[in-house]
């Protein structure tokens, strides 16, 4: 089992190093295939770990330590891996979906003159992500946490001639650094009180304040990583990266790490119930806001990005109310269909010479049927229409909010509205892009790939994911059939009041589906048939297009003041005071020297006078002092 985990972790790292050392001697294709194989090997390792864990009685998992990574006094942190149901599940998702996406990017990145760098980065990302999910203690988790941030930075800024890309990359990294910082602070509290960072210590007893602070710190990290309000603004900009990157990092895996974190550290959250509900609240808020903003986006990838935010909002609600299994399950299905959506979008973009504006893409379905149908599958899964995956994973989350008190109903309402918005913006996208006669732009720019809609390396993963997005949800249909929940039970048992009664389940499912369909219908009416005019409401539209002014707000609160402060310090303090003081002192000294020098008149009599005066002074002093 541990062998599997190590294999899973190290394979991508080896891949990275090979590509790095290979440098320019390595043919591009070779680099690509090294990365791909390494990730698939990792998947193999994950599978190995999974099965060996299944055969373990009660599959509680086990921890392996390579060596002591950091040690001081009695505080000691090993380079540890943990194999338990939660981590294996994540390993499977990350390595599996990751493998498909890397394969996809072989076709997608073909011809880019820095392919090697790309594949090195992406393999490195998979490694970091696996370290994150496999990390056997909080510090290892933080390490992985930071490294995914780093590789996300590298990949967003992959096309580094684009200032926008570089800016987006920096933004993403810094916001995540903020999250890392809050997590670190939480860890400091843990160290101060338990002198350890193993997952076990979370169970220790803390005063409510400590527990709240720790949980808050962790939540800060989770929010930053998962682009939830208030740290959500980096995700849309991150779409500057290559599409496979968006699919892998900003849809399937990294951004959902926040959910994993909460599930992993649920013990402390349960000690700090307020914070946990705060997480749920954040999720609820985000899913609404994101859904609204998605309505007005014109960049195909940004629409999907906002939907990602909103879906993660669902997951937060899920884990926030204590239904960890629900959250994780939605995480999995979401990985399937969101990756699918991004990759189909990628096909479209690829085929249209990197055009991303949906207003130009009308009628694409005519020329790209396969893409069209795959996208449709993903869309339906996203909206949660049975029998697609989203249906099975989203509804339990919504239902689970019903038993936790009055705010539960608020969450419920949000989720339902969110479902409607999901239907609306998803099919707005669909109707704008695929049906109907191809627009002139499409006719002009569409170029197929040897008569196919894309290289086989791109089509195969899309196909596989389409299937998964369709059937991937069937492995759990609460309350009647819930292997995932059972599987996770040893690690993250759902709170009792997060388990809805079957009636609640059924009702919720029906309502959600109907609302979703309603959303689709409206979208059809507005964007396909043009029966209803798009509501004008310019101020509202502007508000949405400005993404509720979050960016401007942060710019105004954080960046501008710090930049101003720095400049002011340099102008007003550093240069005039710190740097000048020494010089001034020196000048004063020299001036004094000039004065002394003036005494040296060169006149003999002056010299004699000084001797006489000196003698007189000494005599006087002595007469007085004697």
């Amino acid at each position, binding site marked *: 089992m541990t062998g599997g985990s190590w294999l899973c972790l190290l394979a991508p790292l080896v891949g990275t190093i090979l590509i790095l050392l290979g440098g320019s001697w390595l043919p591009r294709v070779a680099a690509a295939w090294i990365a791909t194989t390494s990730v698939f090997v990792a998947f193999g390792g994950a599978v190995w770990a999974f099965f060996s864990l299944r055969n373990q009685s009660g599959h509680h998992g086990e921890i392996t330590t390579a060596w002591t990574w950091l040690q001081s006094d009695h505080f000691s942190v090993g380079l540890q891996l943990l194999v338990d149901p939660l981590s294996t599940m994540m390993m499977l998702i990350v390595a599996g979906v990751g493998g498909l996406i890397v394969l996809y990017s072989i076709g997608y990145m073909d011809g880019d003159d820095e392919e090697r760098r790309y594949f090195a980065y992406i393999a490195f990302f998979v490694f970091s992500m696996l370290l994150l999910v496999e990390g056997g203690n909080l510090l290892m988790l933080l390490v992985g946490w930071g490294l995914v941030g780093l590789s996300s930075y590298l990949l967003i800024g992959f096309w*580094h001639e684009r200032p926008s890309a570089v800016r987006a990359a920096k933004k993403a990294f810094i916001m995540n650094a903020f999250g890392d910082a809050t997590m670190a602070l939480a860890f400091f509290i843990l160290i101060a009180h338990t002198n350890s960072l193993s997952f076990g210590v979370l169970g220790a007893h803390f005063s409510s304040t400590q527990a709240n602070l720790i949980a808050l710190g962790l939540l800060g990290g989770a929010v930053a990583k998962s682009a939830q309000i208030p740290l959500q603004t980096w995700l849309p900009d991150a779409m500057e990266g290559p599409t496979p990157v968006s699919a892998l990092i900003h849809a399937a895996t990294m951004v959902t790490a926040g959910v994993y974190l909460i599930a992993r550290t649920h013990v402390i959250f349960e000690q700090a119930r307020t914070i946990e509900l705060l997480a749920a609240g954040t999720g609820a808020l985000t899913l609404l806001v994101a859904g609204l903003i998605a309505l007005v986006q014109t960049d195909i990838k940004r629409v999907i990005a906002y939907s990602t935010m909103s879906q993660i909002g669902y997951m937060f609600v899920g884990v926030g109310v204590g239904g960890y299994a629900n959250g994780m399950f939605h995480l999995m299905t979401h990985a399937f269909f969101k990756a699918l959506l991004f990759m189909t979008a990628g096909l479209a973009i690829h085929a249209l010479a990197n055009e991303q504006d949906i207003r130009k893409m009308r009628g694409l379905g005519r020329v790209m049927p396969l893409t069209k149908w795959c996208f449709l599958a993903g869309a339906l899964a996203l909206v949660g229409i049975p029998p697609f995956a989203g249906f099975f994973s989203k509804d339990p989350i919504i239902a689970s909010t019903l038993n936790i008190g009055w705010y539960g109903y608020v969450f419920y309402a949000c989720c339902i509205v969110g479902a409607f918005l999901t239907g609306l913006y998803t099919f707005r996208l669909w109707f704008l892009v695929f049906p109907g006669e191809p627009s002139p732009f499409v006719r002009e720019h569409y170029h197929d790939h040897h008569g196919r809609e894309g290289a086989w390396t791109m089509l195969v993963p899309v196909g596989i994911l389409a299937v998964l997005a369709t059937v991937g949800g069937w492995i759990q249909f609460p309350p009647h059939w819930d292997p995932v929940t059972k599987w996770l039970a040893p690690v993250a048992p759902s709170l009792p009041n997060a388990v809805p009664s079957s009636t609640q389940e059924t009702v919720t499912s029906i309502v959600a589906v109907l609302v979703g369909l309603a959303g689709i219908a409206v979208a059809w009416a507005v964007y396909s048939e043009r029966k209803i005019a798009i509501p004008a409401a310019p101020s509202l539209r502007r508000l949405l297009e400005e993404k509720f002014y979050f960016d401007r707000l942060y710019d105004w609160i954080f960046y501008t003041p710090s930049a101003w402060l*720095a400049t002011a310090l340099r102008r007003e303090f550093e240069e005039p005071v710190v740097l000048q003081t020494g010089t001034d002192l020196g000048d004063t000294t020299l001036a004094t020297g000039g004065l002394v020098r003036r005494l040296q008149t060169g006149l003999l009599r002056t010299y004699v006078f000084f001797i006489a005066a000196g003698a007189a002074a000494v005599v006087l002093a002595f007469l007085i002092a004697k």
Partner: protein
Amino acid sequence: MSASYLTSILIWLPIAGAVLIWLLPLSRYATGALALLISFAEVGFWIKQAAHFDFSQPGLQMSGQANWFGELGVSYHVGVYGFSLWLVGLTVVGMAACTGYGFWVGRDRPRAYFGLMLLLTGATVGVFEAQDLLLFYAFFEAMLIPLYILIGVWGGARRSEATIKFVIYTMAGSLIMLAAIIVYGLKAGTFDLVDGPTSASRWLFLGFMLAFVIKAPLFPFHGWLPDAYREAPPEIAAVLSGVIAKAGLYGMLRIAITKFPDPTSYYRTTVLALAAAALVYGSLLAFRAPDFRGVVAYSSLAQSGLITLGLFAGTDLGFDGAVLQMVAHGLISISLFLIAGAVERRTTTGEFRLLGGMARGRPALATLLMTVGVISLAVPGSASFAGEFLILAGVFQRHWWWAAIGAGAIVLAAMYMLRLISAVLHEARGSTVSDSALDLRPGELALVVPLVAGLLFLSAWPAGISDHSFFGPSPAAAVKSGFK
């Protein structure tokens, strides 16, 4: 103890080498080669020393003592502790790299240059090994002399002001320290650091600290820093921030904190405040600095602040983290300055507005700068992350807000380091970046790659230092006992 001769060899071999170089009429290449050879020999001897060092053994090791002038209890007394061992290692490795750089760029007047570099090596090693206050002071001062000439002769356009400023600033501190040393030593009847008693005098403590905070430097005593780092030749700037600055921090640990426990606790808050100020202030200025070296310079100001936080936290984690961070930051800033030198050689400038887009077609440069950059911004998993994590965890136990400030500063660090990286490597190609500006040459790689490799090794196993700096489980206890 066996192998105690190594301590003295490490000090005197390079000095002897310097004299040799000055005496022998060697050719340019012979000179450089000889100097390089000696630096490598230093590294070799250090490895041997580290191999002989017994971490399970308390107290001073491989010590050697000889009479200097006994009537006042002053002697030539050298030896190493765990932490000094690491700093010596940092010195010899860093100096080897920088000497190599000097050789690679072919400094003119090679005999003077290499002689001085070796002299500097010996003096710096001496600082970390001296166990007698006056000897410590002697080496502490001796470091200045070669630095003065190295910067003044081979430095940039405004070198002359910069170097005078640097020397006088530093001397201002260390002369006050001399007064403190005299008072302490005569009161105690010995100048020996090992046998010397602890003192409760606040004035003496301040006298020592002044020297160290200027050397380190700490806000607001860093007036010499920007000019010196900008005007010095890159390899000297590297030595300055990577190695020499550590002497000040080492002094805090070995003398100020160890010998003055009561004043330390009395002034703890003050020093911590200064350190925090240095951390934030340095980070902010680095964030707006207009050039490569400016960023690195102010970032090392910030780093000094951070390390001081760790030292004056007075907690186990703080001490371990501080030592680890000293080494890590040493390697980082040496590499960064050498890379800065490489960039300046290719573009004739370090100004960001004239740079940019160097990543395209220069994979080696891009990879190295990126690697060092992200390590220096303490991306989790890196050696500096380990160091900063320990430091902040340690100072957190003193009071939470120090750690909060530190965490904030780490975000700032990310901001300025990413700014540096993208300003040099990314976005539109700068006006001074021409195609003739090639990628790093093998020679440069041979200098920087080992340093980076060392950093990566430390990143993989920071415990190697953090757990092997002080005897026994608890550094705080070791410090309290005066490393007996």
